[in-house]
C-alpha cells in the first residue's frame, strides 16, 4: 500500500459512514447485504421496552446521585441501543466483561439492576459473582478487562466448548478511549494468536471524558482489527437492530470456532462522562443536538408506530412500568445497608492471613475502647 492509497482508504475517524444500519433515525428499516434480523412484533416491542427501561433506570440513578444517595454515576444515556442490542445478542452460555457503564447489558442479561449500585453508592466494590452472573465485575482501570475476557475465551477453547451451536463465546466491552491502552491491543494479539472465541465490543461514544475521538486515532476504530488478523465491523450503535445483528453474528462465529471480531458501535455519550463531569467545558450544545436527532429509542418507536405494531396504550404502559421499576430501584438503593466496618478485613485472601486477622482484632479493640470511654 502506498502512502497515497493509505490516505485515501482512511476516512476521518469520526465520520458515521461505513457502518451497518438496519433502522434509520426516522424509523425506516433498511437492508444490508451481510446482516439482518428476524424479529416478530413481540420481540420488537420487547426491545423497545428494554430501551425505555434501561434509560429510565439510568435516569433514576443519576437522580439518586444528585440527591447524594450515590457517590457517582456513569450514565449510559445515548448508548441504550448498543447495549440492548449487544446484550440481547448474547446467548445464555455467553460471558460478558463490562467496563463501568454497561448497565443496559447487565439488565438484558436478566440481572437485578440493583447489583452494580452498591459500587456507585460506595458500600462495596461490585461484590457480585462474575461467574454465576456470567457478567464480570465492573472494571474501572481502562482496558484491563479485555485481557480477562480473552483469557476466559482461551479457557473455552481449552474446555472444547466451541464448534457447535452450544459453543460458548465471550464479549468484552470497552470505550473508544480504551483502544489506546496497551492492554486492549495485547488482548487483540492473544485473541488472534489463540483464535479465542471473544467479541471485542467497542462503544465509540466519541469521547473519553473530555477528549474527542481524534485524540485516540486518526482512522476509524473498527479498522484496527484487520492488522491483528481478524475482522472489524462498524455498526450504527444507535440502531438496536443492527447492534443485535452484528453482535449475534460475531458471537456465533466465535462460538463456532471462527475466532475474534472487533465491533465498533458508533454512538454518542449524550450526558456527562459521569456525574462528576461538566461536558460544557469541552463540547458544544449543537453537537449534542445533532445526535439527539439520532436517538436510539425514538427510532424504534417510530418503527413500531409506522408498522402499526404498538399503540399509545402500549407506549404508556411501557413508560409506566419503567417508572415503577425505577421507583422500586430507588427504594432498594436507599435501603442498601452500610457495610460493617470489619468488612474491610474480609476477603483480602481466600485462605486468610494472620496479619489481617490481627489488624481486625486491633481495630475491634480500638473501637471498643471508645465505647468504653463513651466517645472520644
Amino acid at each position, binding site marked *: 500500500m502506498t502512502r497515497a492509497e493509505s490516505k485515501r482508504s482512511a476516512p476521518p475517524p469520526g465520520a458515521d459512514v461505513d457502518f451497518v444500519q438496519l433502522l434509520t433515525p426516522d424509523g425506516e428499516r433498511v437492508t444490508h447485504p451481510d446482516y439482518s434480523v428476524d424479529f416478530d412484533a413481540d420481540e420488537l416491542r420487547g426491545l423497545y421496552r428494554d430501551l425505555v427501561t434501561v434509560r429510565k433506570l439510568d435516569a433514576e440513578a443519576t437522580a439518586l446521585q444528585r440527591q447524594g444517595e450515590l457517590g457517582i454515576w456513569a450514565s449510559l444515556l445515548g448508548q441504550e441501543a448498543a447495549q440492548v442490542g449487544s446484550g440481547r445478542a448474547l446467548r445464555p452460555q455467553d460471558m460478558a466483561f463490562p467496563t463501568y457503564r454497561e448497565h443496559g447489558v447487565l439488565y438484558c442479561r436478566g440481572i437485578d439492576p440493583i447489583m452494580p449500585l452498591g459500587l456507585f453508592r460506595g458500600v462495596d466494590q461490585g461484590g457480585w459473582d462474575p461467574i454465576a452472573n456470567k457478567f464480570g465485575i465492573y472494571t474501572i482501570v481502562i482496558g484491563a478487562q479485555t485481557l480477562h475476557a480473552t483469557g476466559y475465551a482461551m479457557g473455552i477453547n481449552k474446555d472444547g466448548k466451541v464448534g457447535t451451536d452450544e459453543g460458548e463465546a465471550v464479549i468484552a466491552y470497552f470505550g473508544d478511549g480504551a483502544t489506546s491502552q496497551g492492554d486492549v491491543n495485547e488482548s487483540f494479539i492473544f485473541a488472534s494468536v489463540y483464535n479465542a472465541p471473544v467479541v471485542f465490543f467497542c462503544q465509540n461514544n466519541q469521547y473519553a471524558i473530555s477528549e474527542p475521538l481524534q485524540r485516540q486515532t486518526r482512522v476509524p476504530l473498527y479498522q484496527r482489527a484487520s492488522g491483528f488478523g481478524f475482522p472489524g465491523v462498524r455498526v450504527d450503535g444507535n440502531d438496536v437492530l443492527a447492534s443485535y445483528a452484528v453482535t449475534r453474528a460475531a458471537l456465533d462465529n466465535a462460538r463456532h470456532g471462527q475466532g475474534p471480531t472487533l465491533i465498533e458501535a458508533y454512538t454518542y455519550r449524550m450526558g456527562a462522562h459521569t456525574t462528576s463531569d461538566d461536558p460544557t*467545558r469541552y463540547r458544544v450544545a449543537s453537537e449534542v443536538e445533532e445526535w439527539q436527532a439520532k436517538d436510539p429509542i425514538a427510532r424504534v418507536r417510530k418503527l413500531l408506530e409506522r408498522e402499526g405494531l404498538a399503540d399509545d396504550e402500549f407506549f404508556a404502559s411501557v413508560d409506566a412500568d419503567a417508572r415503577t421499576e425505577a421507583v422500586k430501584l430507588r427504594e432498594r438503593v436507599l435501603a442498601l445497608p452500610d*457495610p460493617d466496618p470489619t*468488612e474491610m478485613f474480609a476477603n483480602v485472601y481466600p485462605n486468610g492471613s494472620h496479619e489481617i486477622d490481627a489488624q481486625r482484632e486491633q*481495630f475491634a479493640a480500638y473501637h471498643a475502647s471508645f465505647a468504653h470511654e463513651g466517645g472520644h
Partner: protein
Amino acid sequence: MADTLTIGKALNLGLRRAMEDDPKVVLMGEDIGKLGGVFRITDGLQKDFGEDRVIDTPLAESGIVGTAIGLALRGYRPVVEIQFDGFVYPAYDQIVCQVAKMHFRSRGKVSLPIVIRIPFGGGIGAVEHHSESPEAYFAHTAGLKVVACSNPSDAYWMIQQAIASDDPIVFFEPKRRYWEKGPVDTDSAPFALHESVVTRPGSDVTVLAYGPMVRTALDAATAAEEDGRSLEVIDLRTLSPLDMVPVYESVRRTGRAIVVHEAPGNLGLGAELAARITEECFYSLEAPVLRVTGYDTPYPAARLEEEYLPDLDRVLDGVDRSFGW
C-alpha cells in the same frame, strides 16, 4: 506578594509560572486541556499556552510516560499528570526501568527532567482505584526522587522546584486537600525541595507525616495540647531521599516518634522511618517508633474509608500507645 490560595490553585499558578519561565516545559496527560484536568489543576493553561505545550494525550499511561522520555531526550521538560493514583501502574515499567535509570545507564550523559504529578490518597468518597497511596513503590526505586506537598505554599513552590530540577521526580499531591486554603508568598520559596520541616514545634513526641496527613497530624497536635501533651509535627515533604536531619534532632529531644500515612503499613514509609530512627536514636527512644497507617487491605469501599484512614483519634491513640510503653 502574599496571597491566600487553595492547594489546587497554587499548583495551577505554580505550573503557569514554570511554563512562563521556561518555554521547554510542556504538560502532558489525559483531559488536561479544555477540561483543565479532572481536578482543574491545569485550568486555563491550554488556552494560554496552546495545544503544543498542554497536550491532551491518548488514554495510555505507558505511552504518556514513554513519550515524555523521548521529549526529555529532545530537550523538553515534560510534566506528566496521572489522573488518579490508581492509574499510574500501566506506566510503572517506563517509570521504574527507564525514567529512573536513564541517567545512570548513560553514565550521566543525559538527564530526564520529568515530573510525574500524582493526586494521591483517599477521603473523597470515590470508587476503587481513586484513593491509593502508592508512594512507597516509587520511594523504593533508586533513581527516582519522590516528594509530597501538604499546603498551598509548598504546592506553589515545590512544583516549580520540581520542574526546575534535572532529577526525575514523582510529585504527590494531597487530592482531598486540593480545596484547603493557606497563605502563599509568591516572591520567594521558604524551603528547598528536598527538605523536611518542623511544621509545629513540640516537646513530648515527634509526629512524622506528609501530604494529606500533615493536616491530620496538626489537628491531632492541637487536640493533644488540650490534654497537656506537646506534639512536634514534621512535614517530611521529601520521601526519597528522606531528609532525616530534623527528624533525628527532634526524636533525640522527644524520645518518641509516630509515623502517620494513609498507605498500608506493611513496607510503607513508616517502616523505613522506624528502621532509620531506631538505628540513629537507639539510646534516645523511650518507646519504639509507632505507625498509624492504612491497614494491609485493598483500599475499601467509600463508606468504609473513614474507618480505614488514619484520623485525629488514631493519631492520638498512637501517642497514647507510645506513652504507654
